[in-house]
């Protein structure tokens, strides 16, 4: 039963990811990405990471995707990738290479010394994460604020009207 649920969600995740890279219309792609992010959030729930699942939905599916959709709307209203593609051979070569990479990573998972067979679980509540954030991970946490500042200044530099 649980395995079935997992596979169902996994199938949705994979299908939506494939949809993103196959569909020509970027708006469709964005929607597929939303689905993908949502299904990954569901997987987080299965892993008992409730806080992350919520954050995933709020930050990714909520904020980031809105930005994406906004950009798509502003930049190329409804436009698809059209016209002949002179680089098609290249793009097709990428597929076997991607597949090869997948095989390598799966191989890595197969040959690794057997991971614990028992079902995983962790304390995934907001409290545990918060505790870590403000103790062990205090420095990276502060660092992200600098990172966001840099992003802010950067966007400002690029978007200021005066050229």
């Amino acid at each position, binding site marked *: 039963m649980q395995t079935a649920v*997992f596979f169902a969600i996994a199938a949705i995740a*994979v299908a939506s990811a494939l949809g993103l890279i196959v569909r020509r219309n970027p708006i469709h792609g964005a929607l597929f990405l939303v689905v993908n992010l949502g299904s990954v959030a569901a997987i987080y729930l299965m892993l008992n990471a409730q806080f*992350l699942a919520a954050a995933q939905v709020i930050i990714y599916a909520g904020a980031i995707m809105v930005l994406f959709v906004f950009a798509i709307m502003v930049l190329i209203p409804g436009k698809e990738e059209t016209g002949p593609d002179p680089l098609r051979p290249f793009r097709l070569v*990428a597929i076997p290479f991607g597949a090869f990479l*997948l095989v390598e990573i799966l191989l890595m*998972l197969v040959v690794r010394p057997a991971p614990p067979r028992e079902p995983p679980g*962790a304390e995934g509540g907001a409290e545990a994460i918060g505790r*870590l954030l403000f103790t062990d991970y205090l420095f990276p946490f502060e660092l992200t604020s600098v990172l*966001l500042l840099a992003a802010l200044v950067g966007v400002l530099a*690029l978007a200021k009207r005066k050229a």
Partner: protein
Amino acid sequence: MILLVPGSYYTGLSAVLFAIGVTGVLVRRNPLVIFMSIEVMLNAANLALVAFGAQFRNADGQVLVFFVMTVAAAEVAVGLAIIVAIFRLRPRLSVDDLSAMRW
């Protein structure tokens, strides 16, 4: 809600998503879609982090994911700003058009 699924299933799924993201970066022409494929890659990495964290039964993996989300948000902001800046100069939006510098 704890479901009893072996840990390697999660990492396997993450690998598949990662490979799809990689392929997406290469097969698409629209920088926005390429960028979204990169988001898929980041997500796959996040999934792996959470899955491994669960195996070790520590929350470090989840904290890392939290940071990655922040980074992703910052990256999106900057990335979209760059794309918009280019769009002002050249309305067609395909990475193939950006090949003035080569050889």
